[in-house]
């Protein structure tokens, strides 16, 4: 009757390689960021984007939290690139949690990730 805590292969790979973590390099276009923090839920997420010609030209994340959260941020940052700003900030946290096989008690952290995207969206709206 013991549960064996596990990470999916995707989570391991994304956590270990952490593609698009860190600082956004310079480049043409506008820089935007969105950040959300809920320390009591053990999640703190920040996205940095460069918009160019109506698309996300580059994206970076930084995160403090569990491996599932870090993997999710990496995945979201990866998928943003090439999307329109409107597409980039859309997220179904439940679907993402399912994709990464995150245990249900971690959904709260994915909502923080969603909040960071909302912050990003707000920043982009203001800039328009």
């Amino acid at each position, binding site marked *: 009757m013991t549960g064996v805590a596990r990470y999916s292969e995707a989570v391991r790979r994304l*956590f*270990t390689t*952490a593609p698009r973590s*860190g600082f956004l390099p310079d480049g043409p276009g506008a820089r935007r960021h969105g950040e959300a923090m809920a*320390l009591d839920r*053990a999640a703190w997420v920040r996205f940095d984007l460069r918009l160019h010609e109506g698309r996300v030209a580059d994206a970076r994340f*930084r995160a403090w*939290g569990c491996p599932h959260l*870090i993997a999710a941020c990496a995945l979201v940052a990866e998928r943003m690139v090439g999307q329109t700003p409107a597409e980039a900030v859309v997220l179904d946290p439940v679907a993402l949690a399912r994709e990464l096989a995150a245990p249900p008690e971690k959904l709260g952290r994915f909502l923080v990730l969603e909040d960071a995207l909302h912050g990003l969206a707000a920043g982009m709206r203001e800039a328009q």
Partner: protein
Amino acid sequence: MRRAVYLDYAASSPLHPEVAAAMAICLGPQGPHANPSAGHAEGRRAAEAIEQARASVAGLIGARPESILFTSGATESDNLAILGACRAKANHGGHVVTSRVEHRAVIDAFRQLEREGFQVSWLKPTADGRIDPAQVEAALRPETLLVSVMHGNNETGVMNEVAAIGAICRAREVLLHVDAAQSAGRVPVDVAGWNADLVAFTAHKLGGPKGIGALYVRPLPRPVLQPLQFGGGQEHGLRSGTLATHQAVGFGVACRIAAADLMTEATRVRALREKLWRLLQPAAPLWRNGGGEPSLPGILNVGFAGIEGESLLLDLEGAVCASSGSACNAASAEPSYVLRALGLSDLGCQASLRLSVGRFTAERDVDEAAGAILHALERLRGMAPPGALERVR
């Protein structure tokens, strides 16, 4: 490929090869396979192996063999001591004393006592994680039945002055139970000097097999215990169930080995732990949870600002086996109640790592582990949002 450095001795210690060898003989074709309760020659051979083991186990803690009762581990020993003594003394209530930093086996036994109508005084540790004997004295009431205080803490390694607490309990004729699961076999344990009535410990923390433990029961005056399980009447009727010969034999050998070089090994292990602490200094801001003396030699509990423990452990995978909080509830993501009781914030708990060294840890292991930890910290901190180093601690 080199295996990950094992720094989780506080959760479980690898089996000593001599223990494995003794158990293999016991389990082999010529071993004593009969039921040790059986009256025939094969049964007696098994019973004799168990009695020899009992003597070794007793020897480790300065007790006589008759005072040692075999159980399935420290969890059972703690429960038998606490529930057993209190239920035997009072059917519906009474006053008992323990602390907020005990192992779950003790905490949850006391919670059960609360459900059964007992009143529990939960002592808070001092800032350095210790239970002050004066606190114990202040908590005693005329109707107090039992005090339970651990010898060495499984998360911080902080040790209590059990002898001072024992003197107080004895003077007031209150039973004292000591959870020595972390200390037995690692530092000297002297049940008589402590004036303890009941002492729990377990084989797998001292190089023996998992699934066997012991409860020391003071001979004079002998505390009355209500068994947790009833049946064939083994262990003087206090712990029925067929005794596991190979398990007892393994426990006995582990105790003999531990007793043989207790002090030199404690000194060696303590030096390794302090070296590890020194090697981690470049990772400042960092802090030590419950670092004061006296302490168990092998446990180092460190907090790293800006770090989340689960990610740190995954990052260390393949390089270092360690534990965030207590291994017994690694599955739950709740912050350690032990560290919380020391005044740490939830974030500070989450930023903490328990590194525990032991008999088979070498200098090289500590060097390697420190390197891997520094590397992981650098990567994770580099990934954290700006401000995390200040906010998460």
